């Protein structure tokens, strides 16, 4: 076991750095730039039962220290992911993959997860019950504890691999949803997906994004994500994957202190395609600076202020 390694739901990761779904495609664009096997794993583009084009453009807006996207789960559908994307990925990525899945009904989720569960390359299923950019699906499952329970229960019934529920921050108390997922059998919880946001173009007076609203991400959301990771890690027994605004090795360590076993990096990949590689490379030096011998030892290691 290396100083950077962590165990996520029974699978050893060389390091805790995982590009987040939707910011890394199916990996090839980045494999052209560097050997993506330096990553812990990566979470692939959200996959649905049927092919989806997604939302009309513009789908992107800039914000201070972040961005809004309303892509709307564009993907080729699970059958083509298995027939085309996974074989192509096999040539450049040799580690277990985190397969990200979304859906519009409990049956959709179960169907897609079952198919991906059978794929040798897949290590974990990350079940996205938190996409803010689609109607009648995604986030509606992640904002209601009963619906979240139903989805995870159905997925667990037809799969063998670890199931990680990806949660939405657009709720009053995220620990309620996290506990519902844990009760349904989730092997891990990842959070946060994007925060629902909006921008208006002053010249046209229209929303910048054609879908009006979209998911806000980037460094600006890091404190919110960190807080929710902290709350969730104290509420559930299963491992937590920290996601939201992470862009440096210091952010990774902070997330892990808050309770994350592994850490996903999202929007940072879009502005610096080498972001994840740089974070992995910066970890040993950063650990040394803060007297950390092994990353797995700091998970949830945040200390409390003494009450006076």
């Amino acid at each position, binding site marked *: 076991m290396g100083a950077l390694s962590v165990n996520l739901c029974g699978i050893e990761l060389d390091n805790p750095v995982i590009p987040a779904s*939707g*910011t*890394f*495609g199916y990996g090839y*664009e*980045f494999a*052209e*730039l560097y050997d993506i096997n330096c990553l812990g794993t990566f979470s692939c*583009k959200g996959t649905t039962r049927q092919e989806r*084009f*997604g939302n*009309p*453009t*513009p*789908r*992107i*807006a*800039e*914000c*201070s*220290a*972040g*961005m809004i*996207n309303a*892509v709307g789960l*564009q993907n080729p559908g699970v059958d083509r992911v298995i027939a085309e994307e996974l074989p192509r990925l096999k040539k450049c990525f040799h580690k277990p993959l985190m397969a990200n899945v979304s859906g519009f009904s409990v049956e959709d989720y179960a169907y897609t997860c079952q198919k991906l569960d059978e794929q040798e390359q897949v290590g974990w299923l990350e079940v996205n019950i938190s996409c803010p950019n689609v109607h009648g699906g995604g986030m509606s499952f992640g904002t209601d504890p009963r619906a979240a329970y139903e989805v995870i229960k159905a997925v667990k019934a037809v799969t063998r691999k670890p199931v990680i529920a990806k949660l939405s921050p657009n709720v009053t108390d995220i620990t309620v949803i996290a506990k519902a997922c844990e009760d349904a059998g989730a092997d891990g919880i990842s959070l946060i997906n994007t925060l629902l946001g909006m921008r208006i173009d002053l010249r046209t007076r229209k929303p*910048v994004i054609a879908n009006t609203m979209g998911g806000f991400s*980037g*460094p600006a959301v890091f404190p919110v994500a960190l807080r929710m990771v902290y709350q969730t890690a104290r509420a559930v027994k299963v491992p937590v994957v920290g996601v939201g605004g992470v862009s440096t090795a210091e952010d990774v360590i902070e997330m892990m202190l808050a309770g994350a076993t592994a850490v996903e990096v999202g*929007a940072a*990949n*879009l*502005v*610096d*395609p*080498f972001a994840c590689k740089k974070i992995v490379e910066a970890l040993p030096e950063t650990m040394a600076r803060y007297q950390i011998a092994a990353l797995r030892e700091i998970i949830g290691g945040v200390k409390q202020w003494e009450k006076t």
Partner: protein
Amino acid sequence: MKQSIFTIERSRPLARDVVELRAHGDTSAITAPGQFVNIRLTGKFLRRPISVCNVAGDELTLIYKIVGGGTRQLAAMRPGQTLDLLTGLGNGYDLSPAGDSPVLLGGGVGTPPMFWLARELLARGKPVRIVLGFNTADEVFYVDELRALGADVTVTTVDGSRGVKGFVTDGLPQDYSYFYTCGPEPMLRAVFRATKTSGQLSFEERMGCGFGACMGCSCKTLTGYKRICKDGPVLRKEEIAWER
């Protein structure tokens, strides 16, 4: 695609709100006219995609319009300052179907990519006719530079304050073998309708990453879904689906 640091050599205004930027650095990933670079600016989260006007050795020329805070910040940068660029983005124009008498149509800040394209076509011994469209005379730029290459340049302005009064399509010659164009979408639609040959059109879209990862700039085409940043920005006339 490559990530490299470029050093600004010169930044000069060309017309109202239009700036020409010259910088040197590693241009090796830039392989075709019509490609673009994505510029990181201090304090701005997303990069700014700007099409390549010309490449000569390690010297890169970009022309852009000041439209907001990012481009205003870029315009304030001085020689010697450095820029973090992703280079070699997008497919660029395919020169092989040009035929004997191609026509190039540039609208506003869609003009810059026509410079390198014209240079490449002229180097292949093809006579190049260019039609440029602007709103008013004070927006016109790069006519002398394009003429100096040896291209036959026609200028159109909407208000008639310079050249032919009307749109870029009003300057379209009678006969041509193929067309290449870049400009705002209403102009691309007009060019699409007015042209009788096949051709290639370069599109603009709000982008997230600029290199194909985020699916922020996807469009529907007759040959499937395409990412403007990676599978475009240049699309063939035959594959364009206007009803997206």
